[in-house]
């Protein structure tokens, strides 16, 4: 539907894109993080694009990525980018949508914040930071949003155990040792 968005992006910002593609009707542009701000600003301001409505921002942790029926080269291995941050945008006027995906290495998961361009990403980037530990440079207020300040680690990363609790308060008369499953 909005292949023309990808075409226009490739034509104007070809160097900024790692690749583009469509899957299940969603158009995706993999953007290099150095050029993210520039691409995003153009998408918002260019009248033919006019992506004025932000939809969502999230992150994918590829640590356990072993897709069934795909060759080993597509599986995640050490050295490949571990995180992909996704921004989905929508245009009210043109009714097209596009998803920007930015691949980030494990040791340096940071990228420029888009909260200045679209205020909606303020909280959503905070959420992504809270859950995945991805840092957004230039974010006005980057702190945890769902979890509490005392929480250590980033719970939606694949290596955070699902049941690892970090209690703030417990009853005095509870048994001293919590069950082992919560300890690990």
């Amino acid at each position, binding site marked *: 539907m909005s292949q023309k968005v990808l075409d226009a992006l490739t034509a104007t910002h070809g160097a900024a894109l790692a690749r583009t593609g469509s899957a299940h009707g969603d158009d995706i542009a993999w953007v290099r993080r150095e050029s993210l701000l520039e691409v995003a600003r153009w998408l918002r301001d260019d009248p033919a694009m006019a992506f004025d409505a932000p939809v969502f921002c999230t992150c994918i942790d590829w640590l*356990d990525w072993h897709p*069934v*029926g*795909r*060759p*080993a080269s*597509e599986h995640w291995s*050490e050295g490949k980018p571990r995180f992909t941050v996704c921004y989905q945008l929508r245009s009210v006027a043109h009714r097209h949508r596009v998803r920007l995906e930015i691949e980030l290495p494990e040791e340096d998961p940071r990228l420029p914040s888009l909260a200045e361009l679209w205020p909606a990403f303020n909280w959503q980037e905070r959420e992504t930071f809270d859950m995945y530990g991805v840092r957004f440079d230039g974010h006005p207020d980057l702190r945890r949003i769902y979890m509490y300040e005392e929480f250590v680690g980033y719970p939606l990363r*694949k*290596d955070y*155990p699902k049941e690892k609790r970090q209690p703030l308060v417990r009853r005095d008369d509870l048994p001293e*040792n919590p069950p*082992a*499953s919560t*300890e*690990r």
Partner: protein
Amino acid sequence: MSDTVTLTIDGKPVTVAKGTNVLEAAKTLGVEISAFCYHPGLPIVAQCRQCLVSIEKNPKLQPSCQQVVADGMVVHTTDPVSTLARKQQLEFTLVNHPIDCPICDKAGECTLQKLYFDHDNADSRVDTPKVHKAKVVDIGPHIVLDQERCILCSRCIRTCDHVSGQHQLEFAHRSDHELLTTAPGEQLDNPYSLNTVDVCPVGALTAKDFRFTMRAWELDATPSICNGCATGCNIEIHHKNERAWRLVPRHNPDVNDYWMCDEGRFTYHDLREHRLAGPTVEGLPASWDRAIASAAKRLGVFLKDPAQVGVVLSATCSNEDNYALARLAKEWKVGLVLVAGKPPVPARADGRLRVADVNPNAAGVKAIAAALGLATTPSFELDRAPPANLRALVVLGDVLPGFDAARLKELEVIAVASHERGVVTGARVALPIAAWAEAAGTVTNAKGRVQRMHAAFAPPGQAIAGWDAIARLGHATGVKLAWSHAREVWKDMVAQVAAWKDVTWAREVRPLALRFAGSRG
């Protein structure tokens, strides 16, 4: 003449080593060709006909397991002809298969289920009554056979012939009355018999040890190393609810290929028996703080003249635990460093996987002691008479051959062990530590190969990792060993042991839920 071959599978070019079969070549592309009788570790017989593919310029469908790749070969795995052939083969296989999934131990990791679900999902066109065969046939000390479920792939027969070298299983009768049975006058009784259960693609062969205890899809798998002997077979611990339910071999061409011995599989029982769950002082339960303080006080008396103190390293414990204690021994400048371990069992050695040394880490202890410049003595060489001036002993592990009980009673024994037996029962202070399946660490096998173990579940009660317990003990006696993770102990250790400096500490592996791992029959 190059030693690789390039062919096309489903339109994609692939380059593989010469001599590879088509099935393996397809696997490198992520194309899984269905098969029952093919097993990468066994001789190929191509009898299940489940892996038929069409190869251009070839008039008939070919079994991809037997077909060796050739340059320029064009293979189709998804064309209508071969797909139909495989579907019909599957339908045929299921004709006499009993409706056992809800009570079958293989359900959830069954190749037959997997292939049917991947392929067909069509109803059978055959509605003749099923042929019934014997459901419970006791064919050996460890294994029960269900002849109805058997799909006659002969993997188990080849496993017996190939892995243990004993021909104990074979087929009898013909047609749909053909069945698997033991060879005349034989039982399925060899040291590697349980490998047949692993390779069985259906639930025909089930282990008496595991059947009806836990559903396979409920388990989580954590890679580890078998601690049953010095071979160091690569295994997976299948665990749930903080306990192990079975051990299965993990493929490693350099150590154990696809196999392991029966004895090794049963070592997990030991993880739940005679465990030391909390620290004790003089045989009575104590808190960690009190136990450590008590041990330090007792040791402190004799550490003024370190020759009175002995330290026992253990070939049954991990490199990290041994290194921690060896460091402590060096800092204390103790007079005697012993190495304990279980006595060898010469009858075990069979030239295959089993060796006489039943300690997992004898080589590791040796390397660590040598690197730290400690002169060690094997404990059994003491001939039941430790040096007369020995007054206190810090023992890692629970085995200490070479001492008789009466002599031990006279010593101040501080035991750091996972099990409450042997030397631990008489110890003045006992500190509980994690067993091999419960803490991250490494062991070194007889060939000097350092292999990594991952923590599958938490240790029981108040037990902690061995190096941690030893570091606490050291701290209380004034030796600062600041480690917060086994990785740091490892880092410290490889800096000293030259032979291991190229070995890297791999990322922690999280348990894999078998339910979502696809069937691995």
